[in-house]
């Protein structure tokens, strides 16, 4: 029993915890205001319920969107910079094979995914975290393509032109929201992962 205090393991570094919550806040604002902007001229035959949107009207939503944009991008630069240069990405997100991802996803669906060491991401987690980083990068790029189709016309061209950049922006948003929802469901299913993204540590269980 005297070794109990030594049973804590470090799960998430401080940079990851801080950028995680700033990112969560920024995404919430970007999505809620983005839905209001979408409603001004829907790409598809549906609108988002106004109660779920932010800004009150188009001008307000645009103000929110273009304010939170800085938060999302600057925070993203800190996180990705840290992830690359500290070796955090290499250690936590790799190696990653499609077979491992498939196996872990099937195991998760059967409710049999092992989650012994919270400091080690399983393959499904690694894939999801890489995917959301990629989605956010595509969101920022397609957003720049829509915002500045003249000044950044090369990016707009890369997105297949202005109108298709809007579609890319929407699809990347939808995938981001989907990954976030799955992420939240997983945290609800394995609640002891939740305090770790605030405190950074977990009690060793094995």
């Amino acid at each position, binding site marked *: 029993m005297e070794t109990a205090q030594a049973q804590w393991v470090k799960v998430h570094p401080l940079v990851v915890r801080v950028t995680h919550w700033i990112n969560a806040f920024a995404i919430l604002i970007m999505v809620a205001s983005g839905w209001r902007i979408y409603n001004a001229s829907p790409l598809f035959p549906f609108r988002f319920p106004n109660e779920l949107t932010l800004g009150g009207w188009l001008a307000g939503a645009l103000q929110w969107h273009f304010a939170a944009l800085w938060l999302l991008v600057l925070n993203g630069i800190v996180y990705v910079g840290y992830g690359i240069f500290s070796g955090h990405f290499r250690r936590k997100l790799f190696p990653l094979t499609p077979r491992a991802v498939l196996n872990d996803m099937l195991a998760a669906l059967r409710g049999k995914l092992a989650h012994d060491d919270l400091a080690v991401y399983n393959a499904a987690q690694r894939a999801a975290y890489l995917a959301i980083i990629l989605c956010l990068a595509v969101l920022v790029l397609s957003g720049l393509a829509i915002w500045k189709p003249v*000044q950044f016309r090369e990016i707009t061209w890369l997105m297949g032109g202005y109108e298709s950049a809007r579609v890319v922006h929407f699809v990347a948003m939808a995938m981001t929201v989907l990954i976030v929802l799955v992420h939240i469901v997983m945290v609800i299913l394995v609640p002891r992962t939740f305090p770790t993204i605030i405190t950074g540590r977990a009690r060793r269980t094995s």
Partner: protein
Amino acid sequence: MKKRTMDASLAEHSPKLIRSIERRLFLKRGLSLGALALLSGCELTDDEGVQKVLLAMSRWNDSAQAWLFNPNKLAPEYPESAITKPFPFNAYYGEDEVRLVDGASYKLELSGLIRDNKPWTLPELYALPQTSQITRHICVEGWSAIGKWSGVRFSDFLARVGADTTAKYVGFECADDYTTSIDMATALHPQTLLTLRFADQILPPKYGFPMKLRMPTKLGFKNPKHITAMYVTNEYPGGYWEDQGYNWFSGS
């Protein structure tokens, strides 16, 4: 097996620790509630402090866009086949309320930091060298349409009337009581056009007869129609939509 280990380890936690975790969870739930409240964003957006921050960010975005603006970067031009037909009508009023301007008595008034501020008649404007562009008009709402506009290159016109091009702003007043203003860098951009024709025809009333300013480097609402007066100034002029919260620079 695993389950029993977990239960055992839970039992080892001191009540103090459990309380601290509960406190954290409560705090977290509180934060989530805050986030939910945020989603009913109308009231939040109306909050005076929030409003101040958002407006400050919008001003900051004006500066960022002015800094990003490359005076030599051209908007893409398209072939005739890409033109959107019919080209959408858009204004702060409905199409049945389009103002009809009398071309015979029309005069473009000039004021502010302009040396030669005699008014211009339509025949005088039609007599100036004309140029055309087929570019994409992008609305702040997100939709876009490609059209063909012809008229006088605005930088040529500003030079001809002796405008002080070191000034900060050019402001516009319109027959439909619309107002807007632009930065001088955009005014001098080679694709900024004092537009007199749409699709090779005299500008029809719904597209801004007798004259609009066409800028493929700005969102649609920055392109004023039915212009009756323009002025050059160093004092921020604002505009109809800008004063209601739309970003002033709104560059593409």
